[in-house]
């Protein structure tokens, strides 16, 4: 058998990632088309020429959606990466730096979890005066907790494990223990955690923008598109809400899927499949 499940999965993974990259690049290159208004093509339902229809200002909804998705992916990439790093730093600090730090970080987690996410995002966005910066800082502050807990647990377990203790007894340096014995376990966990942060980050960005706290109405963002669409739903322009929403959900599912595949590929327990 030449193609096993692992290889097939790898191919799918590459396909999924390149699809996301295509959207990302298409959105960056195509911002002008997304914003172009043309009053000769107002409120057109979906057709071959405009697959997602056009809105009340004659903007091509397909181009707008792609630009919005690209924006979502960019914010997702940025925030998921940084908040995963925060999670890694705080999680390992809690596990390594003694009881006081551990208790403090535990408190911090409880504190952030105590305020409903959307509300905290609103507060942070309010503190930053809305806009791009507010969203990014807000998502950074609200998404590290669960991964930090995972990393903490993992490091604590590694510290107790036989091979780390034996290595320490044999006089192996701390740095070498960390790089040779601990990181190989932590990195896959970290990567999977990072990928699985994307969907949350993207959904929260869209939600907070939808509520009016995030990106400004001039920017093509899915949240903006959907919040503008409400007014026109009543007059029958259903396509304004339906297609952008489906596309966003698709991106989220794709990220979940990639995360699941990455977990299986990186997990040694499923290496034989």
């Amino acid at each position: 058998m030449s193609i096993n499940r692992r290889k097939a999965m790898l191919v799918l993974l590459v396909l999924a990632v390149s699809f996301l990259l295509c959207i990302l690049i298409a959105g960056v290159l195509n911002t002008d088309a997304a914003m172009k208004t043309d009053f000769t093509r107002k409120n057109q339902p979906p057709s071959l020429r405009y697959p997602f229809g056009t809105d009340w200002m004659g903007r091509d909804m397909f181009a707008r959606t792609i630009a919005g998705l690209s924006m979502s992916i960019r914010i997702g990439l940025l925030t998921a990466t940084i908040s995963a790093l925060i999670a890694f730093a705080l999680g390992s600090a809690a596990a390594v730096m003694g009881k006081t730090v551990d208790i403090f970080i535990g408190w911090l987690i409880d504190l952030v979890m105590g305020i409903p996410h959307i509300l905290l995002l609103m507060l942070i966005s309010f503190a930053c005066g809305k806009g791009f910066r507010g969203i990014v800082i807000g998502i950074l502050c609200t998404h590290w907790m669960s991964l930090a807990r995972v990393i903490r647990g993992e490091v604590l377990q590694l510290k107790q494990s036989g091979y780390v203790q034996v290595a320490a007894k044999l006089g192996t340096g701390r740095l070498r223990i960390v790089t040779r014995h601990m990181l190989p376990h932590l990195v896959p966990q970290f990567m999977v955690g990072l990928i699985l942060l994307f969907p949350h980050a993207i959904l929260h960005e869209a939600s907070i923008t939808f509520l009016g706290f995030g990106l400004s109405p001039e920017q093509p963002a899915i949240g903006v598109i959907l919040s503008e669409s409400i007014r026109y739903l009543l007059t029958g322009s259903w396509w304004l809400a339906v297609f952008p929403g489906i596309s966003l959900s698709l991106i989220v599912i794709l990220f979940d899927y990639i995360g699941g595949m990455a977990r299986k590929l990186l997990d040694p327990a499923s290496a034989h499949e």
Partner: protein
Amino acid sequence: MNKLMVYMFKNFIRMLLLLLFVSITAFILVSLSPIDPLQANISQTALGSLSQEQIDKLEMYWGVNEAPIERYLAWVRAFLHGDMGTSLLYRQSVASVIMQKLSNSLMLMVFAWIISGGIGFFLGILSGMNRGKIIDKLIKGYALLTASAPTFWLALLFLLVFSVWLGLFPIGLSVPIGMDAASVSLSDRLQHAILPAVTLSITGISNIVLHTREKMIDVLESEYVLFAVARGEKRWEIFRHHGLRNILLPAITLQFASISEIFGGSILVEQVFSYPGLGQAVVTAGLGGDIPLLLGITVISAAIVFAGNFIADILYGIVDPRIRKGARS
């Protein structure tokens, strides 16, 4: 029993301290805001035509020029006396705005909380017990789908299908427009609340299903269940003796932890259905720079979330013999 009391007391103190820190965090955040409440609520042209005296008066009203620490201390002192300040946008006391909006929101949230918890738990068990079969795939697919779609978009779709196309439900607001508050019947209120409540429940289910399913699968793969199968226990017996007992504890935590999520979801859902609840009020407050109301709602919502955690901890203490006897691992 004594140990249980100590355990509860410790948790209670912890909750109060956390609440204090939430209020400090929230206060720092709103103080950092560069959003000028005058600019946000009064148009630029109107602001230009005002005299300096009028501007000073307005700045006093919105509290623009006071030191944050003083303001915080004054706010906490008043808060402890039951005075949460005056909402600048609603021009009523924050407490009365919150009471009024909370009663609207609670109707949605309690309904969604119970329905999503109950159905989610049931579907999660069903899915976990039938792992890999068609029913499992269907339930899992449903959960993944609703978890991947933005809550507010699902709400929009529901609004589109049921209110605009089918005309089954009113488009918004918790009571019919232009009707006296006293003459609104219970059925009117219910009719306006059904669609938001259902949307909120549907989005809440997915998380609970996925977690319950995972726990159920963990239990079924354990060695004691393997041994039970070897002893000849039937599926129902395995579920009753091993499954239910072991997934009950995580289910309790999950159910109470979901309060925070339901609250967040209600903000979005209320916005879509223009349902006049706490969520809509907090969005208005945030966009308009109504700091007293924003702070009040943040503290109240955090109190609700912490109270949920606290109840979960107590239930844990009562249900779990390991904690009841004081040896918490």
